């Protein structure tokens, strides 16, 4: 048994990746290999320390370790403290982030080999890992927001990593802007809670909420603000549009940021403020409904996607919706447990997709096929992860999904039906991907680009060892981590993170044979139908597509949400208030909106700008009008 972890060591978890970032920037930049090693070493250190933290928290029954908060600055009565909060929830997140990050870095050495921006890549990755660790370690919501924005910035930098690709740049921008839209809500929530309580301390806010010191209305607005931030970051409907496009980034980035860590930050945030949501029931119901909707809509989209990474992206959105659904139904433990299992198998799936891409130079599943024999290890691990995601007994995904399902069963029958439908769809689209990618005949892939990082083989073969080993390592938790909560270990840890008053109110989890068997049957049915369509080809997907043409179009155009966002919201709303041509979106949507409408809007939009005529007396007259208005109001408001 290790002694309890000292505060300095916890700080070291955060500082190690920052150290590697500085080392790369200041020293090893010209030597890419070294940059990779430095990053891996730093994150490995963070991983080991995280294990130590886990040990200490297990010893403390999941309650927060007693670290003092350090005063950082004081303005009048505004005090900002910086401190660490290490409890059951934190260590689970720590473990997820450091493990996945470590394996992804190792994998990246193979995937990014020969890329011109190798050092830059590892510098960004270090910064990201540091920010993500900061996000889960701090005890103040304000500092959390700082790291929250930083992970967003890193995501922006990494999605746009290949900035010579216009698509990547657009995707990066879209991701940044859409997530920041949610952050407006989060920032306002922070300002609101401070004006009402005068504190940023998370534990204190939880405590105040639980004992009823804050009015329910304020809490509801606060919770909705928090959730707005989470919706952006965790790609929930209707702000999910950025995540599929974010797949333009390097695949290890997708695995780390857009599957296992950053996108679950929203789930983490809602879980962190779970006591607040328990009090603000309206907000909690909103979380459940949004989560359920997202889970279903994204799963449907995954069924029609032809790009393997996009299938995985929609699958991620859908699973994140699942976690939100659980949180909204009070299934705090179920949500985080699913977060834990999902992180491993989804990272594995992404890395597998990267490995496939490494061999074929394409992400288009229609150009793949027959890779099972050429890439046996990739296939095996991908298969295991898919089974796990589909929720097949006894893999990890089965256990966590089962908890969510039983939670839904007891709380909300309607949402339970939705969740069950998603189980079927998940199994279907994952095995559709497997059959298209690994079975049948090889469809030729794509010729490597000149600046591609792929090897220049004519025939695909297994990826180098540095890429395959992380796959194998990740397969272990994807298989086994589900057992972590069979005896309630994870639950015990997580319960310790809640305020005392709530710990005992947590719903008891009972293994429900009916649900377990039912969901297993649905999963197998999904796999079976995928086999009928894409494996044995007994049924023709083409014929179904023709019969259901309207539905298919709806899905193919992603429910027209992109058009809605860019066409109506941006063009309509911003233009109408006079904002005018955002050249950013011009390139994206000009072809979609009929030219006539665009021109009409543009003309009407110039509004405010037209006033700036260049004629100085118009300026003076405007000012004088403003003056008269102010004067008039002044006299109206102050009857003499």
């Amino acid at each position: 048994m290790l002694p309890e972890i000292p505060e300095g060591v916890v700080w070291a978890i955060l500082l190690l990746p920052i150290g590697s970032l500085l080392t790369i920037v200041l020293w090893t930049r010209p030597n890419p290999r070294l940059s990779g090693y430095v990053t891996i070493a730093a994150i490995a250190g963070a991983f080991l320390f995280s294990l130590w933290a886990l040990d200490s928290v297990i010893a403390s029954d999941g309650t927060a370790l007693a670290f003092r908060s350090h005063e950082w600055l004081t303005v009048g009565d505004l005090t900002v403290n910086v401190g660490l909060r290490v409890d059951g929830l934190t260590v689970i997140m720590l473990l997820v982030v450091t493990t996945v990050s470590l394996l992804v870095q190792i994998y990246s050495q193979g995937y990014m080999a020969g890329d011109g921006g190798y050092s830059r890549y590892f510098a960004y990755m270090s910064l990201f890992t540091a920010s993500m660790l900061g996000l889960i370690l701090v005890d103040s919501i304000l500092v959390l927001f700082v790291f929250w924005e930083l992970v967003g910035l890193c995501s922006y930098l990494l999605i746009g990593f290949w900035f010579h690709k216009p698509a990547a740049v657009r995707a990066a921008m879209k991701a940044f802007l859409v997530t920041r839209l949610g952050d407006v809500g989060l920032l306002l929530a922070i300002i609101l809670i401070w004006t009402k309580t005068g504190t940023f301390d998370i534990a204190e806010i939880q405590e105040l909420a639980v004992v009823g010191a804050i009015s329910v209305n304020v809490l509801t607005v606060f919770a909705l603000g928090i959730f707005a931030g989470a919706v952006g970051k965790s790609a929930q409907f209707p702000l999910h549009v950025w995540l599929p496009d974010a797949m333009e980034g390097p695949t290890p980035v997708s695995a780390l940021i857009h599957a296992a860590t950053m996108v679950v930050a929203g789930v983490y945030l809602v879980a962190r403020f779970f006591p607040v949501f328990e009090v603000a029931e309206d907000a909690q119901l909103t979380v459940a409904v949004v989560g359920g909707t997202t889970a279903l809509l994204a799963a449907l989209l995954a069924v029609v996607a032809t790009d393997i990474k996009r299938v995985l992206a929609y699958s991620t959105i859908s699973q994140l919706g699942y976690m939100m659904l659980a949180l909204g139904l009070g299934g705090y433990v179920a949500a985080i447990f699913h977060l834990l299992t999902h992180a491993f198998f989804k990272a594995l799936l992404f890395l597998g997709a990267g490995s496939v891409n490494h061999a074929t130079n394409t992400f288009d599943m229609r150009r793949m096929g027959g890779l099972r024999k050429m890439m046996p290890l990739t296939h095996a691990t991908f298969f295991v992860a898919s089974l796990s995601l589909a929720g097949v007994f006894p893999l990890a995904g089965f256990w966590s999904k089962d908890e969510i399902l039983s939670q839904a069963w007891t709380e909300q029958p309607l949402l339970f039906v939705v969740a069950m439908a998603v189980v079927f769809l998940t199994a279907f689209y994952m095995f559709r991907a497997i059959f298209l990618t690994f079975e049948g005949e090889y469809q030729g892939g794509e010729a490597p680009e000149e600046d591609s990082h792929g090897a220049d083989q004519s025939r695909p073969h297994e990826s180098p060892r540095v890429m395959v080993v992380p796959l194998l390592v990740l397969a272990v938790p994807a298989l086994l981590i589900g057992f972590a909560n069979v005896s309630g270990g994870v639950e015990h840890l997580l319960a310790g993170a809640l305020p005392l008053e709530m710990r005992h109110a947590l719903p008891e989890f009972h293994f429900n044979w009916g649900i377990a068997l039912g969901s297993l049957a649905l999963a197998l049915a999904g796999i079976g139908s995928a086999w009928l369509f894409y494996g044995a080809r007994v049924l023709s997907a083409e014929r179904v597509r023709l019969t259901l043409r309207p539905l298919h179009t709806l899905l193919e155009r992603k429910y027209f949400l992109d058009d809605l966002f860019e066409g109506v919201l941006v063009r309509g709303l911003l233009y109408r208030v006079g904002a005018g041509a955002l050249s950013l979106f011009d390139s994206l949507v000009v072809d979609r909106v009929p030219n006539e409408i665009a021109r009409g809007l543009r003309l009407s939009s110039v509004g405010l700008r037209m006033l700036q005529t260049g004629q100085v007396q118009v300026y003076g007259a405007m000012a004088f009008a403003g003056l008269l208005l102010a004067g008039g109001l002044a006299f109206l408001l102050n009857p003499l």
Partner: protein
Amino acid sequence: MDAPVLAASVALEDVLIVGGALFAIGLYITLAKRNAVAVLMGIELMLNAVNLTLIAFSRFVDFSRFGEGTRPIDGHVFVIFVITVAAAEAAVMLALVVAVYRHRQTIDIDRINVLRG
């Protein structure tokens, strides 16, 4: 008030109204005339309206709280400074107008509108 008889027949309001009218005329000229020099004259007119107002206040306001018999001359001092600043302003402005004229052969300020938007 120990004001002379003649002045007493003119009330504060009267002077303020004249000042206000003068200011309004200046404002109109400033916003309506197209010749830059005329605009400058409008501004001078506005400043003189201000001077009139200041003098009026200085003459009529009740200063008794500063002590019996004291009558600070702040208003008058202010006027002197405003006149001085106005002179400097005219100088700078005329110099600028000349510079613009050299470039464009016009001082019609409606036509000086390259910068806009």
